């Protein structure tokens, strides 16, 4: 087992472990922290896979954006932990994990274990950033623009709906 494999396994365990924490913990804040850990692990995995840009994007957007947002939501709706005591069956959780993962694994096993030997194409020694940017502007420009527009629409719409609803709520109270 080479160093890379070891590193990979380390981060993989981190991911899985953190997600299991989310699965089983009763404290929302603990869960949020575990989510952070998971995201960090995924970012590391991105690096190992050779896309450094994506790792940074992941960290910035996910960990630095989505997570913060989520945290905000958590704190906004925070109640005493006692109220969240749910009689949950852990067995069901494990079972569902096993089933779903098992199924997917089964389906993808052929792909996974019979993957032809491919070599990574040579990349820039500074990473894939320049290449990615170039590709965005040339090959995939349409997608780029469409998605940008799409996002714009979403965000504007969401803000507008929120403001509307805020007005309604104000009228009620």
């Amino acid at each position, binding site marked *: 087992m080479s160093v890379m494999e070891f590193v990979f396994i380390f981060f993989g365990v981190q991911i899985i472990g953190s997600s299991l924490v989310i699965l089983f913990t009763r404290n929302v804040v603990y869960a949020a922290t575990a989510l952070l850990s998971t995201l960090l692990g995924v970012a590391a995995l991105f690096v190992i896979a050779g896309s450094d840009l994506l790792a940074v994007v992941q960290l910035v957007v996910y960990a630095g954006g989505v997570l913060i947002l989520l945290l905000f939501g958590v704190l906004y709706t925070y109640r005493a932990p006692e109220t969240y005591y749910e009689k949950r069956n852990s067995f069901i959780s494990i079972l569902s994990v096993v089933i*779903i993962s098992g*199924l*997917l694994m089964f*389906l993808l096993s*052929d792909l996974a274990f019979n993957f032809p030997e491919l070599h990574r194409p040579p990349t820039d020694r500074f990473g894939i950033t320049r290449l990615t940017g170039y590709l965005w502007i040339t090959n995939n420009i349409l997608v780029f623009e469409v998605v940008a527009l799409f996002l714009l629409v979403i965000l504007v719409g969401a803000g507008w709906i929120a403001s509307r609803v805020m007005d309604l709520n104000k009228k009620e109270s």
Partner: protein
Amino acid sequence: MNPELPHIVIQTISPDGISRLALAIFFMPLITFFVLFFTGKHLPAAIRSWLAAVVMGIMFVLSLYIHIQTKSEHLSIWNWFHIGTIQFTTSMLISGYSTTMMVIATFVSFMVHLYSIQYMKERRNHPKYFPYLALFVSSMIGIIVSDNLIITFIFWELVGLSSFLLIGFWYEKDAAAAAAKKAFMYNKFADLAFIIAIMILYTVYGTTELSIIKAHTNTEVLLHASIYSLPVLAGFAIWFATVGKSAQFPLYVWLPDAMAGPTPVSALLHAATMVAAGVYLLLKTAFLLGGWVSNCIVIIGCITALLPAIQAIRTFDSKKVLAFSTVSQLGFMMMAVGVGALDAAFFHLATHAFFKACLFLSVGAVIHAMHHMQQHRFSHGYYDPFDTLDMRLMGGFRKKMPLTFVAYIVSYAALIGLPLFSGFLSKDAILVSLYQWCTEHGSWRWLILASALSTVAVTTFYMTRQLFLIFFGEFRLEQKDAAYKKLFTELKESDWLINIPVILLAVMSFWFFFSLNPLHAQTGWWMKESFVSVQLHTSVWFIPLIAFVCTCIAFLFAAKNYYNKSDVFEHKNDLLTSLSEHNYYIERGIDLAFIQPVMRLSTGMFIVDKYIDKLIHLKVYFFIVLSQAANLWDIFVVDGLVHLVAGISRSIGSFFRKYLKGEVQGYFYFTLVAFILVLLWFVWYQTAA
């Protein structure tokens, strides 16, 4: 038999002076008709009547002139119209027959016009009387001069139309309207035969010009031709047309009823001219009459002569007696045509025209007097109508109207065939030719001769009866209603306008106009002058003698029964009376044979039609049922399928819905399951491929 129409090129012959004059004679009454028809209402009655009478007078003079001037035949042919290359022509023939006939027709019509001026003065005189008469005279002249069968047919129909208009002139009387319709119907039925004859002749000869047909026909061949020979059939058809027009048995029944018209009309049309038109036509087309057709003509003519004469014995209507007499005499004329004695037939036609017209007009004078008395009573407020024609109510007019009486006696004598009168000559000619015919061929023909002789006797009987009933004895009307006694004693002779025609016609009934020898016509100047050839047979003296004896016996018999008899009012209810009154049930027979089947057929058709309607209803019901079924199909099957599909979706949806209680996670779960299934399919597809 020609399979195709023979193509005949007809040479046109333009009319010479005589023919042009004849054309003028034809057009004069026609113009009178148009003038009086359209302006008659605005002219006073006197001008109307005198204008017509004067025109007739001029026509008579002109036709007399033509008659004297004509020595030979004048034939004129014009082009009428053409269809493609087929030429139709009109023609006119001025010959012995036609000029004589024209003189007779114009003379009698002139007399009738003069008579009508006075006669119609006191009757309902619509302005159409003289126009109709003028139309009739014009059409009659047309028949006389025309030599083309189609033109003759046109005028034949016109004469029938004028007869219809004139018989039904007083159309307010139901009897008159019905009689006019009857006359027209019977004539029309017979005219069908005329059309068939024209068609046959056109097919065989390619033309309807009599001159050309005559030239192409071999009479000797026709005499012995078979029944299938077309020209013979054409001759038969022409004769059948005359059965209607000249009132032969069984189509004579319209003539007695036609007496519902004014008396001058009866005199002109139904005694002298129109009914004689049939005989005249047969004379012109005699060359077409083959062997069996002639026999047919003789037999029917014989029946026609005898049967109506017997009917006249029981008739009380004075004009009807004369009508039966006309039919009977027409039978005599037809018999003569049948045996081939065309000249004898024409002779009798001529003499009959004069004496029958005189008889009608004199009886009309009596009727006029009766009517005058009736009007006098009406104007004094006593409305008790009686039939002015009824002989039972007459009597004793001999003393009151002596001129009329004398004229009646003269023409009566001519009719029954007393020597010194014209009728004797013509009847004698017919009987002699009948005798000749019998001796030539023999067998059953003797019966015809016997029947003819008995007809002579019967004629004498009923005419004597009428003579005694009208002119002798007491005036019987005063026995019914005493008020008339005074009126009768004041009765005078008729107006001169009535008397002059009567007298003139009576004068024509003497012998000297026709033959210098009062007893025999063979040396008659009239015959010689009129005809190109005289075909009268050698004198057979005993036939006229037998006829004279029969006449005398009948006269005595009648005198015994009717001279000064007073019990004429009783109605004898025997077979003879019922047969006479119902025209031997001929009309009943026609009704049963023709009309009833048609009515039954139409009723049957109506019933059939009802069933057809039921069938159509059935079809409609079927379609209604079909549409209902289609509707049900639409509702249950077509819509049902749609509902089924929707229902399946709904049930699937509701099946799955109950597993999702509104939980978001549930939805996610299902999405996951679906995702895995899709993935499964993908993988399986890949491996399969």
